């Protein structure tokens, strides 16, 4: 009898759990529906990015940057006299999630633009849906190939790898005299596997030699075998195309093994955790490029920096700056076009020239690809992250 009682109670509990969840969702759904009639009063912007999961490091600062831009816009009276509202769903870095969320933003929440995603793969998924639904998507971090080609509603505002990598390779070979290079790719990281060929091509074209190649995987902590191999290869510098966590751990291992080598990489290395995790092992030993630097002397950046620190009590990074810029650029396009209709204001957006954003000066080329100048070479110096090492100009083709 006792067993049966427990079973019954459990069943009841389970059912209650399910019903309470259903109840909860019912009330959740009210929000957009109640908001729907008022949609005319507010301009909604949908956030694409991960707030949890392994790429949350890009999404979380991005969300803050976007939030800050919206708050600033609202303080100055909004866009076209309407208040702006940001909607933030977490896509966890999963493609099925971002697909659902993108559709929900467009059809249920009725947003006027999508901001994000910071990664190339997920941006492609969202862009495909946005293009079909005639919705502007403005990625603030997708650096890989094949994004804006999806259609004329797809934009991005970031320093492209194809632009930056050759500039950096030129700096390595000609300024530093590093001829013999090793390349490490993170094998389960789409960003890294896409960036490696770009670097390799630039190295070969500019007369450098790749003397060793290896792979790691994101999420691992033991890189002892790769570092031992690297040590025996005797390269002048190491090109690592992955993310900052693994970069810091590789450098830790190198320090432990007494290997003194400089690591060069893309903006995937741009994360506060690089300095936190790497400690002394990464100090002035890791160099990466980005379109954004807190040392950038432009007044826009300086103001952004102060405001951001005041608001969040931490330093912004590239993603907060790019999300911030994305919102501001969209706002400008809407104002210029005097419309919040994506099919109208996208024309204004495409015309963007020399926009002085906090993440650098942006111009959209005829193919809607952004050109940002300059390329900032960043490193870790003492407590400051990132510290500006050099600024390399980019020739606009």
């Amino acid at each position, binding site marked *: 009898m006792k067993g049966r009682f*427990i*079973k019954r109670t*459990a*069943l009841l*509990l*389970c059912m209650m759990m*399910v019903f309470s*969840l*259903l109840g*909860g*969702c*019912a009330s*959740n*759904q009210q929000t957009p529906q109640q908001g729907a009639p008022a949609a005319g009063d507010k301009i909604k912007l949908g956030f694409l990015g991960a*707030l*949890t999961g392994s790429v949350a490091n890009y999404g979380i600062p991005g969300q803050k940057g976007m939030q800050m831009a919206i708050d600033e816009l609202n303080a100055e009276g909004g866009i076209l006299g309407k208040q702006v509202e940001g909607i933030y*769903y*977490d896509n*966890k870095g*999963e*493609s*099925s999630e971002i*697909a*659902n969320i993108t*559709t*929900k933003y*467009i*059809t*249920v929440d009725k947003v006027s633009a999508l901001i994000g995603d910071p990664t*190339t*793969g997920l941006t*492609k*998924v969202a862009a*495909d849906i946005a293009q079909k*639904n005639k919705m502007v998507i403005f990625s603030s971090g997708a650096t*890989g190939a*094949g994004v804006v080609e999806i259609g004329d509603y797809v934009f991005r505002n970031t320093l492209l790898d194809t632009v930056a990598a050759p500039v950096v390779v030129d700096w390595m070979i000609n300024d530093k005299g590093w001829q013999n290079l090793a390349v490490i790719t*993170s*094998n*389960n*990281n*789409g960003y*890294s*596997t*896409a960036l490696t060929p770009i670097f390799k091509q630039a190295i070969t074209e500019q007369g450098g030699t790749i003397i060793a190649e290896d792979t790691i995987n994101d999420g691992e902590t033991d890189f002892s075998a790769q570092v031992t191999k690297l040590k025996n290869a005797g390269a002048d510098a190491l090109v690592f195309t992955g993310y900052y966590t693994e970069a810091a751990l590789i450098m830790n291992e190198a320090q432990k093994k007494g290997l003194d080598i400089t690591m060069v990489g893309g903006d995937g290395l741009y994360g506060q955790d690089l300095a936190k995790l790497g400690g002394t092992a990464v100090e002035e030993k890791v160099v990466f490029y980005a379109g954004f630097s807190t040392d950038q002397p432009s007044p826009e950046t300086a103001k952004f920096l102060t405001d951001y620190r005041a608001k969040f009590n931490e330093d912004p990074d590239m993603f907060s700056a790019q999300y911030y810029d994305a919102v501001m650029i969209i706002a400008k396009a809407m104002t210029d076009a005097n419309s919040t209709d994506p099919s109208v204001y996208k024309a204004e957006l495409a015309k963007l020239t020399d926009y002085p954003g906090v993440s650098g000066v942006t111009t959209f080329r005829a193919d809607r690809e952004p050109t940002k100048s300059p390329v900032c070479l960043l490193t870790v110096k003492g407590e400051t992250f990132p510290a500006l090492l050099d600024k390399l100009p980019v020739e606009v083709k």
Partner: protein
Amino acid sequence: MDAFLNQTIDAYYLRIMIIIGINIILALGLNLITGVTGQLSMGHAGFMSLGAYASAILSIQLDAPFALALLGGALVAAFFGFLIGIPTLRLEGDYLAMVTIGFAEIIRVFFLNFGPGGKAVGLSGIPQNTGFTVVWLLVLVVIILNRQLLTSRVGRSFYAIRENEIAAESCGINTTRVKVLAFTVGSLLGGLGGGLYSHYMYYINPQDFGFMKSIELLNMVVLGGMGSIPGTIIGVVLLTSLPEMLRIVDEYRLLFYGALLVILMIFRPNGLLGDVRIYDIKKWWGKKGGRGT
């Protein structure tokens, strides 16, 4: 049909319904292996990825018609299900579970290094052929065939193996062969679901089919009811739509999943509907209403 639906139903809800349909096919495949035959498979996402990639590559590289691409994907998954099933299904339950995890991981690593699949960058530009009608027609077919199979001589032997392998042998059932059969058919459905998925998502990537995806599918089967078709469908509907409705408490979703598994195993190890049959419901109603039988 699809055009009509696109106009009448909100794209977001249509999308969820399509995903539910795809998940039903995937989960019914896993149900056949784990729920019905009792062989714990924790690598169903691996078979899904085989179907997803194979069908996508057929579509992109060979311009194969959609039906052929789907069939190809399903057959590739079934073939590998068969291949891995032969040596491993002699293993005891938990060892088999480990092998399926390992196999799914190997498949994932394979696709991470597989040039035609785009490696870690993933494969994009897959024609978006999957629509509501195709999915739900297939769901209907899969449910009907599943039911027919499970009420046949061979289907009953699946259940018998789950209930008691030695007794099943003593009834003349070649348990290894029947298990391989269940595994192959389950993998086939996994591949079919994968094909539908890739042709709906337009973009796939090896990380979409990781361990957590397998666990999510397992959760659907376990929640609704091990071995029960309606149970599995209820599990899929709940676990696909709840997270959508609960975006706000999203971070707690996995916490909830984990707790759910433990609570279910303690109190209802066969899931909500695992051992409830229409016969029992009728009997229960009969008693309740005082009508008697």
